[in-house]
């Protein structure tokens, strides 16, 4: 009897140890329990799109297509909808396009957002979530309520003054039908000899409707951002999940931590067989890049990660590991991933990686321009298998 009792106790202790180890996977936030991802997304009058729909959207989505067909614009539209109550998102997408500075000074600040520069018609984004609820962001240009200080604009030229009198107005209707309006007013602020451009946001942004991160092609893998993201995950005790994903790619990895032996903070990895921690950047571009993506997926927990040119700088041999990591991290953190690529190897690797997963939650969207209209064709598992086997041109 005593022996059985001891065995039970050991079993209980073992179960408790397992349960403790699994705590990060259990402690889901309310946002995660209510995780509602994009099921479809409509774009109207934005950038190169008169009218466009992306549907159906899976947990992980890959967008292919020719240069100039609008892949990045789709991510920008999603980003604007994610930050629906924050007009500075519109400035940021222009800045990433290299339109920031030039736009400010040539009267193109807002016009480039609109299809064929037609600011008379509103931009409209409609998100349908996985329960069928709709939320709509409408973007318009309106005369500025704020007075323009003439002596400040005099130095800036007539063209610039054109946009100083125009506000970007965001009207967001959430899934419950509640409408909130936010205005972004371009302003010139003179501090001493320095003249600065800024966007006055009224009312101030409290919280955007959905968590989300946009990694564009040149911002991927900024060490400072990665340190911030890892810190955030460490504080919320979710860093173990990052380690869990990375261990599958680098089995020697035992622990991640932030160290700053030379001033700048960096992420270091403790590797089995090494006497001291190794900067993550020394573990190769593959590990570094996957870490960057997994940290972004973790930081966008319960929301959306948008990645432009996800295969950028990745050797084809690393692609399968990349997609295994993305799939697992997206599952663990309940983060929807929407990425673009030009690479067939990337598409094949994604298909292979998701085919091995318990549930195939991947959709490929091939964006084509046909008869002047841009449209997306969605490939589920079976059609992508057929397209890769024949093979057809899935890159658009």
């Amino acid at each position, binding site marked *: 009897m005593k022996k059985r009792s001891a065995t039970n106790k050991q079993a209980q202790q073992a179960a408790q140890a397992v349960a403790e180890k699994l705590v990060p996977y259990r402690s889901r936030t309310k946002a995660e329990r209510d995780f509602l991802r994009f099921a479809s997304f409509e774009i109207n009058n934005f950038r190169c799109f008169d009218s466009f729909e992306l549907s159906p959207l899976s947990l992980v989505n890959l967008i292919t297509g*020719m240069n100039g067909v609008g892949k990045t614009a789709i991510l920008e539209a999603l980003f604007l909808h994610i930050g629906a109550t924050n007009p500075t998102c519109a400035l940021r997408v222009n800045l990433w396009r290299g339109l920031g500075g030039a736009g400010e000074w040539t009267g193109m600040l807002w016009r480039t957002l609109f299809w064929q520069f037609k600011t008379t018609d509103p931009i409209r984004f409609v998100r349908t979530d996985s329960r069928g609820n709709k939320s709509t962001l409408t973007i318009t240009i309106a005369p500025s309520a704020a007075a323009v200080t003439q002596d400040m604009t005099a130095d800036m030229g007539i063209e610039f003054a054109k946009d100083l009198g125009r506000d970007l107005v965001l009207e967001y209707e959430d899934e419950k039908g509640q409408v909130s309006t936010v205005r972004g007013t371009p302003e010139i602020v003179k501090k001493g000899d320095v003249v600065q451009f800024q966007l006055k946001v009224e009312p101030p942004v409290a919280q955007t409707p959905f968590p989300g991160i946009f990694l564009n092609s040149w911002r991927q893998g900024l060490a400072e951002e990665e340190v911030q993201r890892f810190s955030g995950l460490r504080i919320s005790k979710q860093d173990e999940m990052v380690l869990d994903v990375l261990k599958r790619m680098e089995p020697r990895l035992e622990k991640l931590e932030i160290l700053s032996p030379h001033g700048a903070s960096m992420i270091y990895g403790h590797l089995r067989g090494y006497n001291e921690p190794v900067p993550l950047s020394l573990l190769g571009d593959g590990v570094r890049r996957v870490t960057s993506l997994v940290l972004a997926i973790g930081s966008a927990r319960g929301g959306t990660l948008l990645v432009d040119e996800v295969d950028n700088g990745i050797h084809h041999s690393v692609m399968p590991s990349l997609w295994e990591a993305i799939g697992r991290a997206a599952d663990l953190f309940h983060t929807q991933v929407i990425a673009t690529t030009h690479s067939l190897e990337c598409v*094949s690797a994604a298909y292979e990686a998701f085919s091995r997963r318990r549930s195939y939650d991947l959709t490929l969207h091939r964006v084509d321009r*046909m008869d002047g209209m841009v449209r997306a064709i969605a490939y589920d598992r079976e*059609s992508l298998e*057929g*397209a890769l*086997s*024949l*093979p*057809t041109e899935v890159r658009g």
Partner: protein
Amino acid sequence: MRKPGDLILGLGKSPSTCPRCGEVIERPVFRIEKPKLLIVEGKDEESFFGAVIAHLGLTDIQVTEVGGKRNIRSALKAIAKEPPFSKVEALGVTRDADTDPSAAFKSVKAALAAAGLPSPKKPLQPVKGIRGST
């Protein structure tokens, strides 16, 4: 059974230059090049039907093998998504009946339905639905 990424050769699958971007595509890529498509199981069927069509002097039929009967469904779904498919006038599917002709026909009907295409009630019976033709 063919796996995604395996190289295959056949009608309409020759190495080519991308008509849109100019890239030389070394791997053979399937393209819809003729107004009528005949989907067949494998290379033997492709050779046979190719020879028959040539013998009959027909020039508007493209024969494409899909690497086995198990691939008919996924291949049809992929082909139907090709932008030029909207210009296809007629589509035929051949399949070995094996030991159960009824099951084979049902399988093709299901594959056509999965690709969003109409299917006939009986084998060898044309049905309208692709651009109003048979």
